[in-house]
């Protein structure tokens, strides 16, 4: 047992009980349905902006890109305009590849010590694949949810839903009905990828060793969001019309509590609220930070162009004059040219 993930799991359990008991036993629907989500959204926006602002306030004194390709030097040597970008356009492409396709993670290798003592490195794509699936599925799921916050539903949301639910299976039992609404791949992939990332963190000794509670917590939370969402869609079949009326009320700041919506909805909403509140204070800020990483987002033309350091200051150096004063006689004896002859100094 690892205290760190048990702590996080326990935290999620408590966070589950709060809305569940709050709504079913105490009827705190307004608190969990309206106040907490609005406060959470406010904290998220203010917190996110403050973090980005905090980072921007620290200057970038030196340009320190990690060069991952051939530099641009002699005209007849082919350079890497993306992995060693000398132009802003190259940096933009590098950043797009980094943000959208996790290019650096794509390089991932796995080190192994063979029985004969030889070290070998093999291409290891699972982390990249899991991470990419996780993030894209999350994005699609979020965009898909815009259907609850806009009327009429924007065209791109409908298009996305169409492709996302392209995979339709009809499967009915008394307890569980799958089929008619169409399965959203994004939800399933999100859940599967989050479980993979969690399993990896727990099962791989090295990753477990470096993990903090703060690494398990968001995974448990997102799994909680995905499970509650999937439950609502495929099992408990919540009243979509009622929810839409409620969410539209939220965005128009004229919220009303819907009737006939079960506790699962409040749990889902509360988990999302917790995620929003937690986000700006956690490692999840890597979402904003990646754009500000000086090893990736700068041009590599540091010898071709002059760049200034805003806090550059003069330093004490050992000047040539001092150096010559220290060694003048020896220099003259060795036949090295000097700026001042011995006679000049003695005067």
């Amino acid at each position, binding site marked *: 047992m690892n205290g760190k993930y048990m702590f996080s799991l326990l935290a999620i359990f408590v966070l589950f009980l709060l809305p569940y008991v709050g709504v079913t036993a105490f009827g705190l629907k307004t608190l969990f349905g309206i106040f907490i989500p609005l406060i959470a959204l406010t904290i998220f926006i203010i917190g996110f902006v403050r973090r980005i602002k905090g980072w921007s306030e620290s200057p970038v004194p030196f*340009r320190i890109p990690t060069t991952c390709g051939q530099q641009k030097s002699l005209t007849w040597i082919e350079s890497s305009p993306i992995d060693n970008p000398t132009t802003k356009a190259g940096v933009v492409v590098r950043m797009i590849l980094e943000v959208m396709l996790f290019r*650096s993670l794509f390089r991932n290798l796995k080190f192994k010590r063979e029985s004969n003592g030889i070290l070998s490195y093999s291409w290891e794509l699972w982390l990249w694949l899991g991470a990419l699936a996780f993030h894209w599925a999350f994005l699609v799921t979020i965009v898909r949810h815009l259907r609850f916050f806009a009327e009429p539903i924007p065209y791109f949301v409908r298009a996305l839903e169409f492709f996302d639910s392209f995979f339709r299976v009809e499967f009915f039992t008394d307890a569980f009905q799958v089929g008619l609404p169409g399965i959203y791949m994004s939800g399933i992939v999100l859940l599967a990828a989050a479980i993979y990332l969690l399993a990896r963190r727990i099962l791989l000794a090295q990753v477990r060793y470096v993990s903090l509670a703060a690494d398990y917590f968001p995974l448990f939370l997102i799994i909680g969001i995905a499970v509650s969402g999937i439950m609502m869609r495929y099992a408990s079949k919540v009243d979509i019309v009622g929810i839409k009326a409620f969410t539209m009320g939220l965005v128009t700041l004229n919220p009303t509590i819907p009737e006939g919506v079960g506790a699962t909805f409040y749990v889902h909403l509360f988990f999302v609220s917790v995620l929003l509140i937690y986000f700006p204070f956690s490692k999840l800020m890597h979402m904003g930070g990646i754009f500000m*990483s000086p090893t990736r987002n700068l041009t590599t033309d540091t010898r071709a162009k*002059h760049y200034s*350091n805003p806090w550059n200051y003069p330093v004490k150096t050992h000047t040539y004059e001092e150096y010559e004063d220290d060694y003048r006689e020896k220099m003259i004896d*060795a036949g090295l*040219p000097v700026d001042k002859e011995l006679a000049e100094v003695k005067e």
Partner: protein
Amino acid sequence: MSDLPKPDEFLTGIDHKMPQTDWMNTPTEIRKGMYCYASNYKSVEILGLPNARPWNPLEDDWKLPENWQQIIHEGFKERLDKFRSFKVFMDICVRCGACADKCHFFIGTGDPKNMPVLRAELLRSIYRNDFTTVGKILGKIGGGRKMTLDVLKEWWYYLFQCTECRRCSVFCPYGIDTAEVTIMGRELLNLIGLNIDWIATPIANCYQTGNHLGIQPHAFKDMLEFFVEDIEEITGINVDPSFNRKGADILFITPSGDVFADPGTYTCMGYMMLFHYLREKYGFDITWSTYASEGGNFGFFTSHETMKRLNSKMYAEAKRLGVKWILGGECGHMWRVINQYMDTMNGPADFLEEPVSPITGTKFENAKSTKMVHIAEFLADLIHHDKLELDPSRNDNFKVSFHDSCNPARGMGMFEEPRYVIKNVCNHFYEMPANTIREQTFCCGSGAGLNAGENMELRLAGGLPRANAVKYVHEKFGVNMLACVCAIDRAALPTSLEYWVPEVDTTGMTELVANALIMPGETKRETDLRGEPLPGMEEDDA
């Protein structure tokens, strides 16, 4: 090296199993063979750096200033405010573990605190506690901890087990650069006088005499004149270098290590022969300097300020001598400093001209602001324009592979130039496996000031991944010579290879060039620069 295990025992002794105890609760033991001696207080005094005093890492009392915690805290804050890199890197790591097995020290030691992620967590844990509200509230479960003497010792031990090679930053999805974290950490340690002597004394020497080895001007000239004699013996030609000469076209600066120790000395002889050749053939006009007689910059391993103080000599000397531009020799971190820091720190060098090769007329557009060109760029251009008369068969005894030095690789991207040069002066060239070269190259294991003698176990552990790839090409292709463009490599690799792959030797790029270079008026060469018989000349010896 006598108390070290045999290589195969060393290899089987490496254990990558994680300890039972959480890393924060695993105490750090400063172990012999893994750490470098403390800085000599006299060296610290020369630069006027804080807390100069004799101290010993093995003793309990490190003789720290009373308010050392406050100094570290304030220094930490100052750096967060001055470097976005530091602030962002403290905040955004998700501990995905992609960096873990990319570090040569983790591969070679199996010590989890040598995983780049944990090396950075050593600082992040303090950052969370000192500078984030959540970290203060959550304490240990939030990944924060208080700065204690034990933490400080852990910092010192592990920040000097990182060679700032940046391999991890290639693989990090956010580009988090452990070198940057180590640089900041070492700056903080230096605020309370915790450096290692293999860094502190070279920087004091460099500050005072112009080079790390403390060679005074007359002795520097003497040493190069020894090489003049050696070259004359081999080629029959007197190369006659010039020093501190005002009005020369170009100033040449290279690491002093190559003046001092084999096999770097052969590379140094190579420079001298090349310059002589170019002078005779094309009227090339270059001077050495005794004042700026160091390309390397161990200040970089101390603090940004110390780096700037040492680096300033390059432009100052170029200005004093009135040269047009500067040519730089083979060196690793020297080139990261020149490529990414020099112009910003000590430029703009508006007193110099945009560099143009006087021989080929090539404009080095990529260096038009710093006005400093790498010898590999310069040589590749010469060879491309067919300006050198070469006999590559003189290197036929060598089966060569090329080790990309960390900084020219990941802080510059100079991959093709040295390869082009080497392939033109050698007939037998073989690459090591793709995931151990270019931007994925492995460190020699002794960079960033760790090339001391007392930390030999650490150096060999760190050198293992590189040596292992060399061993692979040695067994597969018979490679017997590893070329590189770094003076630290030339000092470190021979030791590492002697232990792991004793059949393979180390050379600089320019040494290979000079072997192949047909100098006007030379006598028939019988040996290479090392005095070894050339191919086909072995018989004459017998």
